[in-house]
């Protein structure tokens, strides 16, 4: 077994991991471990934009961004953290631009910005242009730019090293265990600080915008090591995924004037969000779509609706809304403008649907998209061990894997890309600072044993069960009962099923018994993570008897601030999930009714 030593280890090479790497490597010996080549990371698929109140086209302020995020979070976000992120936003966007990020541009040469769901001028209540974008490839540009800068700064990478365990000694971090994909060999990485930046876990559900790699490794690994997971019942279902495939169609389509249409040809969002209509928060729109389809107004009676960005449709509704550009001129678009601003969306529709969005509407349905919950952290990316604020020395988390909480019960569009750059940077700086004053914990002799046991079971299982069947059944039951709308009985059914699937999982045997590039074994191990997270999500959701943000219950339709204005903290102990709660940090904004 090979052993390596670095002061700071970063697990994951998406936006948060690479940002952390750039900053940590300035003052500490640093290595990045990633189960994928860095440029394959899921950050690259983010489309519409990154939020920052630059005010390039019209007046905007970080306070408005903060309030919009608090409101978007359905008041579950911690307001100190949200303020920290929104205040830091303009500076970090300028930093990215100075790293070479090719943002689209306004005629005056400044960074281009577009409207997005829930982004408003807090005085007029009208949509504001806050999403900084590079066509519909903003995530791709962020990922490429950060990787390029890592090459420039000679950051050390271990590509296709799959981290499978966290090593702790006396309650402090000592390193990680990783499996090298090429050889199947276990490596121990000894470290003073570890940053988890492993992304989300949308693969728990069947219809998802998330990559195959989004299997919740970070949360699952830390849960097994006694770290709680926060607010796992809150998962965002994005309104516009390509029908059946789940591939994301950016909210930027609606920012550019696109509207959602039901089977009767109605623009139904005006009934659910009279003020901002198709630019309401994602949870609001996903629920409205669900209700439209429940009442039989899905297209042709099916489980999809139309997203229409044809110029004639956009211009018709823009005229009805008296929509204007920031300069006061009437909002009108041409087919060429749509093509220039949304090239990748148009390509996806051509390839996967045979549909041309400039002349035809797109069939869309809600798609499992984003984990608001995750490893609990403070604004410095330090990881909490309990509801009282104890932290694990040397452990950090940033990006989708973390719950700061800046997204609360529902994330505002564009805040995920902002989250990864702001808190990735913070994690890198803090981990390097910590390692400067800390010494290495002694490595235990059996550091890799727990990981090795997990893989030995997959090699030696009876083989009476197939991992693919278990995965499919888990995804189906989560789609059916722990999706956009939830009720007690359904969730209980889901929980019983997941526990049964966890039993069946013990009989799985990897079809590939070799060492080199054994992706079979790793996929099956990832399924164990998904099963754990499905269970924690469902237990957390069953307990929360209210509706808030992404957690909507038919049997408890109202938000209940008296009982439930609090974060869930979940632990996995002796095969069971234990819950506790901690208060939400409220600074300036008292909870009030949420109307769009």
């Amino acid at each position, binding site marked *: 077994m090979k052993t390596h030593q670095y002061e700071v280890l970063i697990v994951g090479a998406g936006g948060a991991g690479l940002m952390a790497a750039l900053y940590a490597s300035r003052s500490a010996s640093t290595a990045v471990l990633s189960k994928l080549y860095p440029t*394959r990371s899921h950050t690259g*698929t983010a489309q519409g934009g990154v939020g920052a109140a630059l005010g390039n086209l019209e007046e905007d302020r970080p306070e408005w961004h903060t309030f919009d995020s608090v409101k978007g979070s359905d008041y579950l976000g911690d307001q100190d953290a949200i303020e920290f992120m929104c205040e830091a936003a303009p500076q970090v966007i300028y930093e990215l631009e*100075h790293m*070479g990020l090719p943002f689209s541009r306004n005629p005056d040469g400044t960074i281009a910005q577009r409207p997005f769901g829930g982004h408003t001028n807090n005085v007029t209540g009208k949509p504001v242009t806050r999403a900084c974008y590079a066509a519909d490839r903003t995530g*791709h540009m962020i990922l490429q*730019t950060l990787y390029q800068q890592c*090459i420039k700064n000679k950051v050390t990478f271990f590509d296709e090293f799959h981290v499978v365990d966290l090593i702790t000694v006396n309650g402090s971090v000592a390193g990680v265990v990783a499996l090298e994909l090429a050889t199947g060999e276990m490596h121990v990485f000894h470290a003073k600080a570890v940053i988890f930046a492993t992304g989300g876990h949308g693969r728990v559900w069947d219809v998802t915008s998330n990559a195959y*790699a989004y299997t919740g490794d970070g949360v699952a690994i830390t849960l097994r090591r006694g770290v709680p997971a926060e607010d796992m019942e809150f998962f965002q279902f994005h309104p516009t995924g390509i029908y059946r495939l789940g591939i994301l169609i950016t909210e930027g389509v609606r920012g550019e004037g696109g509207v959602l249409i039901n089977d009767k040809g109605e623009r139904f969002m005006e009934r659910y969000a009279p003020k901002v209509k198709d630019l309401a928060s994602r949870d609001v729109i996903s629920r409205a779509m669900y209700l439209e389809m429940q009442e039989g107004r899905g297209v042709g009676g099916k489980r999809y609706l139309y997203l229409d960005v044809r110029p004639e449709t956009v211009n018709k509704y823009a005229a009805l809304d008296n929509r204007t550009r920031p300069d006061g001129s009437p909002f009108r678009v041409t087919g060429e403008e749509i093509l220039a601003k949304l090239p990748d969306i148009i390509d996806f529709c051509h390839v996967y649907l045979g549909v041309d969005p400039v002349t035809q509407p797109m069939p869309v349905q809600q798609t499992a998209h984003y984990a608001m919950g995750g490893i609990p952290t403070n604004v410095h990316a330090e990881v909490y061990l309990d509801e009282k604020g104890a932290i694990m020395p040397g452990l950090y988390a940033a990006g989708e894997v973390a719950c700061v909480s800046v997204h609360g019960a529902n994330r505002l569009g564009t805040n995920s890309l902002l989250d990864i750059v702001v808190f990735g940077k913070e994690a890198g700086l803090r981990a390097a600072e910590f390692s400067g004053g800390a010494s290495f914990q002694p490595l235990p002799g059996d550091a890799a044993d727990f990981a090795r046991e997990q893989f030995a079971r997959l090699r030696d299982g009876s083989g009476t069960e197939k991992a693919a069947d278990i995965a499919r059944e888990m995804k189906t039951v989560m789609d059916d009962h722990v999706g956009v709308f939830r009720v007690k009985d359904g969730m209980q059914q889901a929980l019983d099923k997941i526990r049964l699937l966890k039993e069946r999982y013990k009989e799985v045997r990897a079809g590939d018994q070799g060492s*080199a*590039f054994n992706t079979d074994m790793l996929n099956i191990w990832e399924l164990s993570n998904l099963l754990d997270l499905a269970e924690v999500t469902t237990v957390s959701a069953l307990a929360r008897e209210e509706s808030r943000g992404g957690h909507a219950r038919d049997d408890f339709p109202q938000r209940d601030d008296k009982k439930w204005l609090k974060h869930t903290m979940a632990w996995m102990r002796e095969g069971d999930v234990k819950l506790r709660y901690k208060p939400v940090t409220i600074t300036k904004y008292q909870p009030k009714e949420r109307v769009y």
Partner: protein
Amino acid sequence: MKVTLKIFRYNPETDMKPHYDRFVVEAEATDRILDLLESIKNYQDGTLSYRRSCAHGICGSDAMRINGVNRLACKALVKDVGNKVTVEPILGLPVEKDLIVDMEPFFDHYRSVMPYFVGGEENPKKEQMQSPEDRERFDDTTKCILCAACTTSCPSFWASGEYIGPSAMVNAHRFIFDSRDQAAAERLKILNDQYGVYRCHTIFNCTDACPREIQITKAIGELKKAIVTARLD
């Protein structure tokens, strides 16, 4: 419908040389070739190995030869390739297992062209200005996802692995024609080499192979012109 896949197989732990296996899969016309590979791996042969992640043409993991042409398996649909499909690893890089190739030589070439922005400030208070026209100048080459479909479709690269290949040049182009960047001359010097732009014989395989529809041969032509004229138009 039934689709028959003939797949290149090589396991470094057990095989002296590669062979092909046949699989039959029940599929729909709109299924991705990647969906078929997943079905085989899940239900017929867990040892079948390939890379994949986003499954919609953005991450660049799953470039492979599908019926002799470089494609992303997640962007090639059954209706586009037919019900008899041959799947092989991309050419010109060492095969490690089945459809997985060693990407290091490819990334070495990428790293050799200074594929990063030179310029900018440490703690900026404002963005650097750039006109929409200047931004448009290099837009096409910002789209590269480093999937290697172009480089491994190039006969010049098959002939010599020392040729830096189309993808590395696309990434050099992305910076050389960025009005904000300050290292164009250095990059052009790197490309002005017998293993640089001169190995491109305008065969257009790369342009045909690119899943992002980047006009690669045109971009290389612009680099050649910049080297000859010492000007960036």
